[in-house]
């Protein structure tokens, strides 16, 4: 079985690798190539962050949480607005202090959200089929979008982490024009890595974390160790909420916080497909692959296509991720790291 499957995967991998390296030989500047690569990785980091939320929740509650994007938006809005309002309310100095406090409060809010969701949505729907639950999370999405805009506002808001937005160029000696690096992206990567390490520790070291893993593996077992499933869910959704907050912060500081962030959820879907619904490393790696794949395809594959068929502009990154994920599904339905299951008769 497994042996049979590895062939196609290798093939697909080879094709992708070839596509990835092709530009180097079709005469695009190596410096620029690296920039695109980095750009892709940075975008990938953000996708990973959102995908991480998906995976956490799916692992523990088997719910495919469509609302993750809405949660990112909601958290980001909360952070941005609180950071803006707090100085006025309690006279805390604007800038980092306000931001820090706002972050804590926002985290608290996300916990509250998680608790409400568990109470109002998950508990009544427990043991419903996944589709119903998926639908419910879509309902949550709508609610959060509306609610978020009502209390936080629907304008564009800034989260200022105080990082210079101007690009820096490294290795001008090696590559003509140097390689463009944005400090923001670097910070984003650092934060993301930190978060992942944090999660890893949480899952490996803490009792709750181990409990969560137990649940993920087998609900009955979890109950038998005596963990109330409801609490587990609240915790997991809170963690996912926290992840959403971090994702929102990173993204918001780059491009500002606005309703459109909610669309990010759609970007994360192919990532979880690629990485497997139940694998945290999968989410990370998948995110990076998708990020790089998108940017590479857009920059290097797009223009030729446009020329070839006289298209009205490129924009193939919109579907590339999905088609990639689809191809991948065909050869390996359980994803990169997801565990497969054979249904018996």
């Amino acid at each position, binding site marked *: 079985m497994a042996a049979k499957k590895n062939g196609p995967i290798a093939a697909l991998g080879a094709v992708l690798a070839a596509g990835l390296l092709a530009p180097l030989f079709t005469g695009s500047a190596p410096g620029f190539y690296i920039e695109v690569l980095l750009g892709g990785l940075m975008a990938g980091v953000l996708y990973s962050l959102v995908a991480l939320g998906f995976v956490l929740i799916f692992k523990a509650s088997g719910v495919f949480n469509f609302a993750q994007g809405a949660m990112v938006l909601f958290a980001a809005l909360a952070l941005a607005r609180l950071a803006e309002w707090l100085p006025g309310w309690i006279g805390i100095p604007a800038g980092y202090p306000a931001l820090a406090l706002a972050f804590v409060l926002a985290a608290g809010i996300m916990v509250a959200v998680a608790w409400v969701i568990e109470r109002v949505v998950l508990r009544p729907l427990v043991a419903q089929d996944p589709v119903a639950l998926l639908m419910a999370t879509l*309902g949550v999405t709508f609610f959060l979008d509306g609610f978020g805009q009502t209390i936080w506002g629907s304008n564009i808001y800034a989260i200022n982490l105080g990082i210079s937005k101007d690009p820096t160029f490294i290795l001008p000696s090696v590559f003509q024009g140097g390689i463009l690096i944005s400090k923001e992206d670097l910070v984003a990567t650092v934060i993301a890595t930190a978060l992942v390490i944090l999660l890893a520790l949480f899952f490996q070291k803490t009792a709750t974390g181990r409990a969560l893993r137990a649940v993920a593996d087998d609900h009955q077992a979890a109950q038998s160790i005596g963990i109330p499933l409801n609490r587990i869910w609240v915790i997991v959704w809170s963690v996912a909420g926290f992840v959403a907050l971090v994702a929102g912060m990173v993204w918001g500081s780059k491009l500002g916080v606005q309703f459109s962030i909610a669309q990010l959820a759609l970007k994360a879907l192919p990532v979880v497909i690629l990485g497997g619904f139940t694998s945290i490393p999968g989410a990370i790696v998948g995110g990076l692959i998708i990020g790089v794949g998108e940017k590479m395809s857009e920059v290097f594959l797009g223009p030729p296509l446009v020329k070839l068929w006289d298209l009205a502009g490129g924009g193939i990154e919109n*579907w590339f991720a*999905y088609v990639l994920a689809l191809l991948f599904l065909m050869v390996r339905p359980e994803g990169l790291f997801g565990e497969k299951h054979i249904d018996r008769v």
Partner: protein
Amino acid sequence: MFYRENGQFKSSYREDQQLLGIRQDRWFIFALIAFAFLAVPYLASDYMFRAILIPFLIVSLAAIGLNLLVGYCGQISLGHAAFMSVGAYAAYNLVVHFPQLNFIVVLVLAGFISALIGTVFGLPSLQIKGLYLGVATLAAQFFIDWVFARVKWFTNYSPSGSVSTAQIDMLGWTVNTPVEKYLMVLAIVIVFALMAKNLVRGHIGRSWMAMRDMDVAAEVIGIRPVHAKLSAFAVSAFYAGVAGALWGFVHLGSWEPAAFSINFSLNLLFMIIIGGMGSILGSFIGAAFIVLLPITLNQVLPVMGRWVGMNFSTAFASHLEFMIFGALIIFFLVVEPLGLARLWSIGKEKLRLWPFPH
């Protein structure tokens, strides 16, 4: 109590297998159809036709299509609006290149083209199931969106990438007043609803449901997954295609790919979940729900606001609309995961047994 079956004995399997077993149901449906054809044209306002009835009917058609796939065959599709757009653009190009074609012919052809595409994007269903398949169908959504936005030929090289349609006329009958449009759409939708009903009570429909309920057992019986699943995708996409063509030609009149965005797909899914999976009637109820709810909230909320003496801003009203919409979806999933159609049948059940409790 008039809702009684007693005295209605089935003397042949034919009778037993007819669409509406209970006489009262038959009457009810006939009455409803008669009302829709004869009375509504005199009662409804322009607004009702253009903004509510016509869109409602068209999305119902699309919802039926989706329900055949998701509700009956158990294959999730998150990209059905894309199949609608295939139908719409197919119809547009047919009209552009063969102006003499009768609109009905155009519709059917558009349906077939869409069915073809649907089948192609249904292929993954042979490999993967459930949510994975759902995400796979998103690939269809985004890819097809892109194609129509990019390949100029499909939009007949219109500089803005937006296409607009000539008025519909078939065999001399020019369909342009709302009433005419309504009647045409109504007729089409009824015919297609009947066809759907026939399909699902025949052996093809049973093979779909078998796939949905227990695919291994179905295979053991000798049902070929390839046939069952792909035929479901094809038929479903056919419906979507026809609905899409109607949406473009009758409702919008001019559109760009954004008119068939992912949100449309999700709404279709809402319709069948709320209305009821595996129920043609449910498709209608769900469509009514999803079409009417936002419009209603959007109009009623400010009024209510004035009642309670506060003036809702448009923004707040539409945010509230979002929230209530989401809340209601959750509410109905909680109280009746099987959808509104189920409530309907439960109600009927009770009516049948009335006045006895069980």
